[in-house]
């Protein structure tokens, strides 16, 4: 259907053109009435040959059916695509009158828009591309914000954001003061639930469905969850409860056959981690089953008798036998299974959603759609990691901008040193929860395939599994992001610490994490680890220290231990030879810079900020001592006593919440009576609020933990507040 015909049927002739100038004006779009000029279905407006073209494979007939050839997007020009149909869509309301072929055109334009936008900002690419048709279908059939759509994890919701009034701000995504990279309730009424950690969508959707029923409302509730997120226990807990409560809701299972991130190994997605994927594969290939049912029906037709009963009977007998055992898994839990469905057919999706929407009492329904991650953008389809998470890239080729850092990331240093430990000791094994790429253990996996365990998105199981490994003589290293370990905390307490099992926790992404925002921020790990009686808690100040702490953890065999390190790159410290660390003496810190009157006791990479502050203070004729505590538990009490004895001011600094390193130091000082004297103690840590996503520098400013803030604190305590304010 040509855009001209569309003009005739849509509301009064305004065309919203995305505002380019002010990101800060929230809802003002430049609106101008467009004269509907004759346009072909190829959207090269103004016949400018350089534009990225979104076009149909063949010229569209006047009454084009949806099957008249797929939409093709030409990425080769690298320019912003012309998107005439998408330009008319500000909110889902604008999508209601679109025909199927319009929706397909919209999907193609949306795809082009996503590629173009993410190429400029970086972020998650291929997950959004895989659900373009789903997003279009959902918003065409359902009416957010009254209807609730909950996107599990949320990194696939870029298309959803574009269709719900945020297209003009997409260029700010994941940046300071810009759109969040995940759905966020504060940001838009169309984001029904905040997500970021996986497998929460069904639980939340069930809660909303129950609230709706108790409050007498009539809206629909839909959750969209991927096959990877389905491996987490919470998804089953939620499905089980949904089946029991029998409230109306829809769960869309987005199956792209990955069942883990495609970054899991260096060569692409790992083989699926469990039985679920086999079940899903069987579901997809249940042609046999379908044919069997049809055969049974046709035979019954000859016998005479109601065919649907026969089909049901054959189902009942044959289910366990043939390939539909997966569907009976969901049905055992109480969800009605529909599928598999081609997740890239807008027509199929719209049909199914409309039918289910119109039923009075379907109860909980699971719609299993099959999609391809990165669909429609050839470089993503071809890449081993499917371009799951990208930095800025060139749209015509998919080539990403290479980072120019002279040092590697802490993650890589960690992986490297763990490999060295494993080479020296064959009891060292590594465990992660579906984050092979993120934790660097994909390198370990390549080197020691039999000693690396990816348990799927199952942190709770990962921890207890590691406890089991330790109990029977191995040396397990559990590499889990600081914020993700929150999910397995009881297991850390009860299964590891209480029994004093020597599990080593490598807490990556500790502290503020930049663009991912508060959902991924590792603010709490010092607090929640250091309060455990048997846990050794340490943090490296740089990458060399990190390697030594890996060795230290490997050597601690009588109790659990953990070490934390941030997102980002190393500072350029001199690495130990062969990248193999040497174990540190447990409970011993070190003094880096000698000074007087004021001591800065840093924990972890905040030591670097302390060093910079010390440099800045020299210009003010203040020479501070800088010490690296290394251990939060056990504290280097001798060091603390010395610092307290020899200085007037002691300032602790950490990139963690209240209740962490600063707390432990304060308690120690008060217990030993050192706070009864002239000592001035100040603790610097993350403020008691969530820090929004943004550039790491901006976040540290917001948190008040930059070198400037530290130096200002010193000067204030020395009675020089004016100079404190003048610091740059």
């Amino acid at each position, binding site marked *: 259907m040509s855009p001209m015909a569309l003009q005739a049927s849509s509301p009064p002739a305004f065309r919203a053109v995305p505002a380019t100038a002010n990101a800060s004006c929230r809802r003002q779009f430049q609106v101008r009435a467009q004269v509907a000029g004759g346009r072909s279905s190829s959207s090269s407006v103004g016949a400018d040959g350089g534009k990225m073209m979104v076009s149909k494979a063949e010229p569209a007939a006047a009454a084009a059916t949806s099957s008249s050839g797929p939409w093709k997007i030409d990425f080769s020009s690298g320019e912003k695509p012309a998107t005439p149909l998408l330009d008319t869509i500000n909110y889902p309301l604008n999508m209601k009158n679109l025909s199927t072929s319009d929706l397909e055109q919209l999907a193609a334009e949306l795809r082009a828009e996503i590629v173009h936008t993410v190429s400029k900002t970086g972020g998650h690419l291929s997950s959004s591309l895989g659900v373009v048709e789903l997003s279009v279908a959902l918003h065409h059939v359902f009416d957010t914000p009254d209807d609730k759509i909950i996107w599990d994890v949320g990194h696939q919701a870029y298309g959803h954001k574009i269709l719900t009034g945020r297209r003009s701000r997409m260029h700010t995504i994941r940046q300071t003061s810009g759109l969040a990279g995940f759905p966020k309730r504060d940001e838009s009424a169309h984001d029904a639930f905040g997500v970021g950690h996986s497998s929460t969508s069904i639980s939340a959707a069930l809660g909303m469905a*129950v609230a709706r*029923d*108790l409050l*007498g409302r009539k809206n629909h509730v839909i959750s969209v969850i991927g096959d990877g997120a389905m491996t987490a226990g919470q998804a089953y807990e939620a499905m089980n409860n949904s089946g*029991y*409560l*029998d*409230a*109306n809701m829809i769960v869309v299972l987005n199956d792209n056959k990955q069942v883990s991130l495609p970054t899991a190994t260096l060569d692409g997605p790992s083989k699926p981690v469990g039985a679920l994927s086999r079940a899903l594969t*069987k579901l*997809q*290939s249940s*042609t*046999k089953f*379908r*044919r*069997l*049912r*049809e*055969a*049974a*029906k*046709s*035979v*019954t*037709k*000859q*016998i*005479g*008798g*109601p*065919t*649907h009963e*026969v*089909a*049901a*009977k*054959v189902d009942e*007998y*044959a289910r366990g*036998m*043939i*390939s539909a055992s997966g569907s009976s898994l969901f049905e055992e839990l109480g969800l*009605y*299974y*529909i*599928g*598999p*469905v*081609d997740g890239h057919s807008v027509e*199929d999706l719209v049909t*199914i959603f409309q*039918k*289910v929407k119109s*039923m*009075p*009492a*379907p*109860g909980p*329904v699971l719609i299993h759609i099959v999609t391809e991650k990165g669909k429609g953008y050839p470089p993503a389809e071809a890449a081993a990691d499917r371009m799951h998470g990208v930095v800025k890239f060139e749209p015509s080729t998919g080539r990403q901008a290479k980072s120019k850092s002279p040092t590697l990331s802490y993650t890589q240093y960690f992986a490297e040193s763990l490999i060295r430990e494993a080479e020296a000791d064959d009891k060292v094994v590594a465990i992660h929860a579906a984050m092979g790429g993120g934790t660097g253990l994909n390198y370990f996996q390549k080197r020691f395939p039999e000693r690396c365990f990816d348990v799927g998105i199952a942190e709770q199981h990962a921890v207890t599994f590691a406890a089991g490994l330790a109990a029977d003589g191995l040396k397990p290293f559990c590499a889990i992001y600081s914020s993700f370990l929150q999910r397995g905390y009881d297991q850390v307490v009860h299964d590891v610490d209480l029994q004093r099992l020597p599990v080593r926790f490598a807490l990556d992404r500790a502290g503020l994490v930049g663009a991912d925002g508060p959902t991924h921020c590792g603010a709490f790990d010092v607090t929640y680890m250091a309060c455990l009686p048997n846990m050794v808690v340490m943090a490296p100040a740089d990458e060399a220290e990190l390697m030594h702490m890996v060795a230290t953890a490997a050597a601690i065999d009588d109790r659990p231990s953990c070490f934390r390190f941030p997102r980002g790159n190393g500072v350029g410290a001199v690495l130990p030879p062969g990248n193999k660390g040497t174990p540190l003496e447990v409970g011993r810190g070190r003094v880096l810079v000698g000074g007087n009157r004021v001591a800065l006791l840093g924990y972890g990479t905040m030591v670097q900020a302390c060093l910079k502050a010390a440099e800045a203070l020299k210009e003010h004729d203040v020479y501070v001592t800088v010490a690296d505590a290394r251990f939060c538990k056990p504290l280097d009490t001798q060091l603390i006593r010395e610092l307290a004895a020899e200085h007037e001011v002691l300032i602790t600094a950490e990139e963690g919440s209240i209740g962490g390193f600063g707390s432990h130091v304060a308690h120690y000082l008060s217990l030993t009576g050192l706070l009864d004297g002239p000592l001035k103690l100040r603790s610097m840590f993350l403020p008691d609020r969530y820090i929004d996503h943004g550039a790491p520098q901006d976040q540290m400013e917001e948190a008040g933990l930059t070198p400037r803030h530290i130096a200002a604190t010193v000067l204030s305590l020395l009675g020089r507040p004016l100079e404190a304010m003048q610091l740059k």
Partner: protein
Amino acid sequence: MPHLAATPPASSAAAVPTAQATAAGRVAFRRPWNTPRLRVRARGVRREDGGGGVRTEEQEQMASRTFYDLLGILAEGSPDEIRVAYRRLALKYHPDVSPPGAAAENTRRFIEVQEAYETLSDPSRRASYDRALARGVCRLAFSGRRSQSHRAYHHHHHHHQEQEEKSGWRRSWEDQIAELKRRSTTKDSEENLSWGARMRRRAEASSAEEL
């Protein structure tokens, strides 16, 4: 296989054996066509099973039958013979007409027979199967799961299968939706005690009051 509507056709123009409901509710039927009873010489061990001979799973597998044996015909059988043999066995093992105790076993056999028919009725698949047999790769391949030997002759049909699969999916979910619709109309009857059903009934009642 023709796609059937959810409601059974009242009567079909095609030759259909008339059904007579017996008092017990079981369907008895007369076969209108004259099937020459095929007395066949089967390859290998074959037992005409009237439901009497007790045979264990292992015995069956160890008998290493081929699809031809299963259908009770010669390897050179014509398409007609294959079809006729299939119908005979399908009607025999259909879950609807089997005695309750033998339902599971018969359904399993029904599935096997179905598998055999699908393979042998398609000329190219039958040719592949024959080649595989000649190589000694597979015999009675179906064991209730996708088995290794299938890959041998399914390989070049993979692409067609994919296409077929996708269109096959549509029919599958259309059925599922029809079934859901049917269930959904009766779902909230008084017997259903689930929380959701109770809430829905309450909502219905209060909106009926308002009218």
